[in-house]
């Protein structure tokens, strides 16, 4: 992609695949680039309408990426409709950013990869860094000319893991990363008050999983990703992962773990990382599945 190889701010952090990350400075220089579509994805649905990077479109993780009825992601037709609405073609470089240290940006990035949209990157530091640097924000929603996008069928085989696959993964004692909070990992916290629909009947973690809360991969001051050396110290030094490992990451519903999936896959260059989006809300509610505390 044009410009990515000269993004020195990213290059110096030592990532395995630096082309999937852009700096806020790079983005500021490419706001008018017709080959780039800037996409904001947040937890707080009021953030985008309250102000966003000029030209950015909004992709809502629940409304746009999830099937409205069953627990699953949109199908090919849904992705094509979304792509048309936000005015992208397979040749468009989608640059994602958002709140919460890019948690939702990584989630949207991950769903886009299920449909093979590989021309994609995440803004290092996301919304918080852009705002802290005093860069322009607007409430103007861009007028986007709909495009025609022909997507492949969703490919759930490479980067997505399902319950039975995770069970087999566990039996084979392959590496698993639980990215939830330590309290969720130990089972001290089982369900969130007032949210029985996202609660679980059993607390704990999948046997063999190691706890690495997702946010450890980010610098809390500006939301940027930690350098490759710092990330290796966490995932390899502390947990013992290696780049050739077959790794499954999970959280409660697969959003926080998409952040860790992004880190392991692109920033550290791991060859096989899958996100178990059923995560604890499926595992902790399933009859008979083993649980460790």
């Amino acid at each position, binding site marked *: 992609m044009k410009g990515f190889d000269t993004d020195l701010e990213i290059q110096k952090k030592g990532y395995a695949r630096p082309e999937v990350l852009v700096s806020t400075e790079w983005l500021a220089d490419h706001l008018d680039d017709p080959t780039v579509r800037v996409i904001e994805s947040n937890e707080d649905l009021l953030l985008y*309408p309250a102000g966003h990077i000029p030209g950015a479109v909004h992709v809502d993780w629940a409304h746009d990426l999830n099937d409205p009825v069953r627990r699953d992601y949109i199908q090919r037709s849904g992705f094509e409709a979304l792509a048309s609405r936000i005015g992208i073609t397979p040749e468009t470089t989608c640059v994602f950013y958002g709140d919460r240290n890019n948690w939702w940006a990584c989630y949207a990035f991950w769903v886009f990869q299920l449909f093979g949209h590989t021309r994609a990157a995440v803004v290092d530091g996301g919304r918080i860094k852009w705002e802290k640097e005093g860069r322009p924000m607007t409430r103007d929603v861009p007028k986007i000319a709909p495009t025609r996008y022909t997507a492949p069928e969703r490919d759930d085989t490479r980067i997505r893991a399902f319950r039975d696959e995770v069970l087999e993964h566990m039996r084979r004692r392959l590496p698993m990363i639980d990215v939830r909070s330590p309290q969720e990992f130990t089972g001290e916290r089982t369900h969130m008050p007032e949210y029985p629909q996202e609660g679980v009947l059993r607390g704990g973690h999948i046997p063999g999983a190691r706890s690495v809360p997702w946010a450890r991969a980010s610098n809390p001051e500006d939301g940027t990703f930690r350098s490759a050396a710092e990330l290796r110290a966490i995932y390899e030094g502390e947990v013992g992962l290696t780049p050739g490992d077959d790794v499954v990451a999970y959280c409660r519903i697969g959003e926080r773990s998409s952040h860790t999936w992004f880190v392991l896959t692109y920033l550290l260059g791991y060859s096989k990382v899958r996100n178990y989006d059923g995560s604890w809300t499926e595992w902790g509610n399933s009859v008979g599945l083993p649980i460790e505390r």
Partner: protein
Amino acid sequence: MTEPTSPARVPPTLAEVVQRLSIASREERTETLLEYADRFESVPPEVATRPFSERHRAPYCESEAYAWAVDRPDGTLDFHFAVENPQGISAMAWAVLLSETLSGRPLDEVLAVPPEVVRNIFGNEVSMGKGLGLMGMLDLVKHEARLRIVRARRA
């Protein structure tokens, strides 16, 4: 569409907002909530100054929301808020909504506001974490009302 909470359990000022949003489109809901957020003003210094006491911090709220109650002569309360995370737009909207609809209302009405009003107002799309934080703000407001009710009974 979110099924609105029974108006009988919600103070009329808040019930009116719930009713309005229950028939609003997604865009109208967003626009309305944004109007509330735009009116947000942090707690005045005569009520609280930084560093804020953790006692006033809303549980579970990652927007770092704080709430205070100031007694009115008639026994009701004025509610004030701070939202320390500048990205906490929903928390700001909710703070204004709570302040404008519950300040000056009878304490038993405040205490009766059910937690599901958060989903009635913000919609079913609100994430677990966000919803939990907004409910935490409501809990804090209700806690202040409960304190006054208990004190009054003991007096």
